[in-house]
Each structure stands twice: as C-alpha cells, then as structure tokens.
C-alpha cells in the first residue's frame, strides 16, 4: 500500500507547479459588527427561515415551558444529554412529578440498548449546544462523552436549550474555540433547522430521517423575557 501512496504523491509532485494569484481579502461579515440584540434577532430569524421554531423564555420558565411543549407534542418519554443547564438528576425528578420518563445515554448498560432506546423508545431528544451561530441560525454541537450523537438525530422532536450568551456571530467564532492545539472533537455537528427533503416531485417535507421538528428554547434573550 505505501507504494500506491508514494506513486500518487510522486506524480502530483512531478507535475509542473502553476503559480497561484495572491488570495484576495477575506470578505467581511455583517454579523461581526452586530451587538447582542441584533445577533439574537438575526439568529431567531435564520432559524425560522430554515423551518425551526424559537421560543424566547427566561431561564426560570424553562421547566414550565418544557412541560407545555411536551404536552402539546404528546411526548412522554425523553432522552437528554447533560449540559450545565440540563442537570440530569434535576430533570429526572421533574419528569417523575410531570409524568415524563426522562433518561440519559449513560442510563444504559451498553450501546445496543442505548441505540434501541434512542431510536424506538423516546419521542424527543433534549440537548444543550456549545454555540449558536447567528449567521445562519445554526446550532453547534461538539460530540463527546456527554453529548451523544443520536439524541439530536433519532427522535422526531429535537429540543435545544440555548442561553443567549452562547450566540456567536459567525462559524469561525465557534470553531476557533472548539478546535485547539490540544483538542479536536471526534465530531462537530452544525444543525440548521429540522431534517428535510424535496426529493419526490419537489414536494418539500420535514422529518425525512432526522427530527421533524426543532424547537430552540432561547434563554434570557428578550427584554422582560416575554415569550414571543
């Protein structure tokens, strides 16, 4: 095998080198010069443009709003990935008093049982995010031991809890923090709206393979925290 590698590289290196013009200036971003309120507004608009739903609430209203959403969506079983705002024990206890079965990936003895649960048992996945990017209304999730990949993918409903302080202007702001000299997450996912397709007769619909609905609870984003 090393031979193939070497002969490919040799052929590429033997080819005449062509001068490339100097790179032009990196084009500017509007989002970089926005203040916090404008970033929030842009983020919310872009999530909506891609078919997602944002609810602006105060952090103290999170449990209450969650209960309302789950009732409306008919969700009784939920899997969550822990986050500073999603403390599993607290949510499991809350679930018990609200008739919601709350589980986390680490509740399962092995991958197979976890997979079965996240595919077939739960009706919703609840996650935090590492960042939320204003430029395209994108949630950024760095997957690691506490952020399992399938929780935001396999259930039909994905609920993301986003403190307004995690909104950043552009992708670069998030990526620079996530990839450092000592750390490269095994996977980083950008989520912009729910899963969708228009592959049959150009008829668009949501929930092709992943979630049909994406709800973002945006915490402490609105003056007076009025639900929008």
């Amino acid at each position: 095998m090393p031979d193939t590698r070497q002969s490919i590289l040799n052929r590429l290196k033997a080819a005449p080198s062509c001068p490339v013009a100097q790179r032009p200036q990196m084009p500017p971003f509007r989002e970089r010069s926005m203040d916090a309120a404008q970033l929030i507004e842009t983020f919310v608009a872009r999530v909506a443009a891609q078919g997602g739903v944002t609810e602006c609430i105060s952090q103290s209203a999170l449990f209450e709003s969650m209960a309302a959403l789950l009732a409306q969506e008919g969700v009784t079983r939920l899997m969550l990935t822990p986050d500073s705002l999603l403390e599993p024990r607290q949510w499991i206890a809350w679930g018990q008093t609200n008739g919601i079965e709350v589980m986390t990936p680490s509740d399962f003895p092995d991958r197979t049982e976890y997979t079965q649960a996240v595919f077939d048992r739960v009706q919703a996945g609840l996650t935090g995010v590492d960042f939320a990017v204003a430029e395209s209304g994108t949630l950024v999730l760095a997957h690691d031991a506490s952020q399992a990949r399938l929780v935001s993918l396999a259930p039909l409903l994905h609920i993301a809890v986003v403190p307004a302080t995690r909104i950043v202007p552009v992708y670069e702001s998030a990526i620079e923090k996530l990839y450092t000299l000592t750390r490269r997450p095994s996977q980083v996912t950008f989520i912009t709206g729910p899963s969708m397709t228009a592959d049959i007769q150009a008829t668009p619909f949501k929930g092709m393979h992943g979630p049909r609905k994406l709800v973002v609870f945006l915490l402490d984003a609105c003056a007076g925290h009025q639900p929008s």
Partner: protein
Amino acid sequence: MKVTTERFKTIALEELANARTQKFLQILPKTLSARRQAAYASFPDPQAAHRYGAAIRADAVARLPELLERFEKNALDNGAKVFWASDAQAANDYIVNLAHAQGVRYVTKGKSMITEELGLNDQLRDSGIIPWETDLGEFIAQLLDRPPFHIVGPAINIPVEQICDIFMQKGVLDAPTLDPVALGLAARLFLRDKFRDLHMGITGVNIAVADTGTVINVENEGNIRFNKSSARTLVCVMSLEKVVPTMADALHMLRVLCRSATGQSAGAYISMDSGPKKSAEIDGPEELHIIVLDNGRSALYADPQTREALRCIRCGACLNACPVYGKVGGYPYGWAYSGPMGQILTPALRGLADSSDLIRACTLCHRCKTICPAGIDHPELLLYYRAKDVQADPLLKGHGAGSAEQLAHRVFALIAGHVLYWRLLTKGVRMITDRFADGPVIHKIARLAPGWFHSRDLPALARKSFHERWREKEHVTDGGAHAKKGSTLD
C-alpha cells in the same frame, strides 16, 4: 451503474421527447438558480465571497500534494485509518474486504457522487453485500437502477406512480399511495431499521481539512449523520482534490457550497469528523476509514489545463445555469457527473474515447463559468478537450480527425495560401451559394453539411468581395499611388 456517455445524442433525443422530463426541467433549474441568487444576496459582498471561494479552490489544487500529506498526518493522529486507492478497483476491493472481515450483510450509504464513480454498489452486490442508498432520491434511483437526474434531486423527475410501484415491489410500502410525503415516510421507516442495527456506513466527503485531518459532509435529510453516528465502522471516500488548507477555508467553502447547491445559507446538517469516536463516547464509529481516491486524477494533474477540473466542489450550480442541461436533463451525460460539471470531469477521468458528444454539447455561452463557485472556466476547458480530441491526444485518448476532415483542411490550406486559387474558390463558392440563396439567407446547400444547417442559416454572400469593391473604388478615385498600394493588398 452502466456508463452510457457514448449514447449522449440518443438519450438526449429521448429526453427531449419525454414530457415529464421537460416539465421538471422547466421548474427545477430555474427555481434552484433563483434560490441560489437570493442566498448569495445574504453575503454583504456576494462577488467578494464568490471570488474568495474560487481563490481557495485554486490554492488547494495548486498545493495538492503538500495538503494531502498534511491531511493524512492529522487524520492518522486523530486515530483514523487512511487508504490510498489508485483506482476504482482498489477502493472497491478495500471496502468489500472490510465488509467481509466485519461479517456485515448490508451497508448503508450517504449520497455521494464518488461511490457512483466507483460503481461501488455493483461490486458490493456481486460480493453478497447489500448496499442501501439512504438519501431519499438516491434510494429511489437505486431501486429503479437509474443514474441521477440532478445532483440535488437524483429522482425528482420520477412519477409517484412509479415510486409507489417499486416501493410495493421491494417491500418498502404496505399499501399503495400516491402521496409524496407518505412515500417519503415509508422510506424513512424502512431505512430506519437499517440504521438502528447498522454495522458499517459509507459516505463521500464534501471537504477535507489538511490542518485538522477532518472530513466534512453537508446534507438536509440526516441520513449521512446516521451513517456517521450509528455505524460501528465508517468508511469515508474522498477524491483527492477535496482537501483545503484550513478550517477557516472549509467554513467559507461551506458557505458558498450550500448557497450554490440548494440556495440555503447552511444545509440542515453539516458534520465534521476528526477520527473515530473516543472510548468514553457511546455512539459514533469505532473505526474510521478514509479512502483517498486517485482514479486517474494524479495523472491528469500533470496537465495544467485539465487540472482545472479538480477545482470542482460538486455544487451543481452549473447544471441549473446550463441551457443544454435545461433541455436534456441529467440522463444523457451517462455517468455519475452531469451538466457542465460532467462535461469537464468525465473526459478528464475517463478520457475522450466515449465523450465526443459530451465535449461538444455546449454553446459556449459562459453561464456556467460565471456561476461556478470554484472558478472553473468550463468553455475554455471544453475547447481544449475538443482540440485534444482532433489532435488524438494520447493521455486523453482523443480520436483524431477523420481522413476526410484532414484532407479537407489540407486542401483549404493550399487554396487559402495562394491568391489566385483563393479568387477562383470565392468565385466558385458564390456561384453555388447564389443558387441556394433565399433572399438574404441560405437555408441549405444541396446535401452539404446537413448537420450544420440543421440549426442555423448562412447569410447569402455579398454581390462582390471586398477586394473587388476596393479595386472599383480605386478606379473611381483614380489615385495612382493608391492603385499600387492597393494591389499589394491581395
């Protein structure tokens, strides 16, 4: 997948007569072009963003060997395995052997042009492994054994009746329905079982990052994320030109790619993988295999002109801009790559032997060139291929001009090189054309060049040639010095 590039004309004629194809061609390219334009408007300076993307691709192609080495080193550091495949056979063998070693009976696949280039599905099937395409459009195209109609909507032209039939036949659907959404959801359920118990997933790669050894995929459905999250073993196949220098470059390319392909500022899902899952992670692949595919690319890299084709990021924008694609659709191009993208890539990768019509099915209108986010000059490249074809270029396997054509050019060169012969020729030609002129135009000349006259007229020749008129003018003004000078003109 059968390669039918040499039947371009036949299939194009069929498609021109196909009402359904024509219906979709009136809508799809126009809609996608309009969406692309609207999405580009979200850049503060669309032209600058466009130029910057093209500069990244130029840079990446120019620095290819160095970037590939850096990519490989970082990918290995991340814990991925990297396999360099010289051709399709090597890549297919690697995947088939891996599947056998892991004892899998089926694999799932994310939409990828590159595995179509490999003909991977046929190879897997021949080895007793079932490949399931999981992108809805690809899934339908696979069941029907059709090439992709459009890179963004591979089966968008297939009537619901036909989808219903094939779904019933293959056990995807329990009861017939013609509702597109119900059909889509049936496919969701069917493929969900495959994802749940998945052992091995295969995807392409949209962008690879040299600095971090990361492979990036863009999609809207979520099937690629399932392939990358649920599978125990993940194989990502990348053609070697997919690499860009830095993460910042990748982010900018994502911006122009999503806008150019579907008119979105971002696809629903963009996943960036740096190595397999870490041991404490509960999902994600335990093994990540990255296949770097050459398949002729390192050879064509030697030619600075053909090398330009490697800049392509497979966004599909040129398909939507192309007046030829807009009439004949994706099938005539006969391989994984259609539209102008196919016209520049197929000859580069497969040679000119089968692609005579492909490189000539172009009006040189330049719309593809203007729209291409990778900065490719398609018309220039097509003219280059045409020249290489008549020159019987050995590397590109050009045909060479036929003996009649060669003779005609030799005779013409002889005549055009002598004043007397030339005057006789023009006189003779005028006598002939005068007989066929219909007022100011000529619609045909006996049985001469029917192909040429098929779609165009020739203006009738003027009563007198420039030289004849010049000489007459000299008589009128009667300048002796002029006469001498003038006579040197011819």
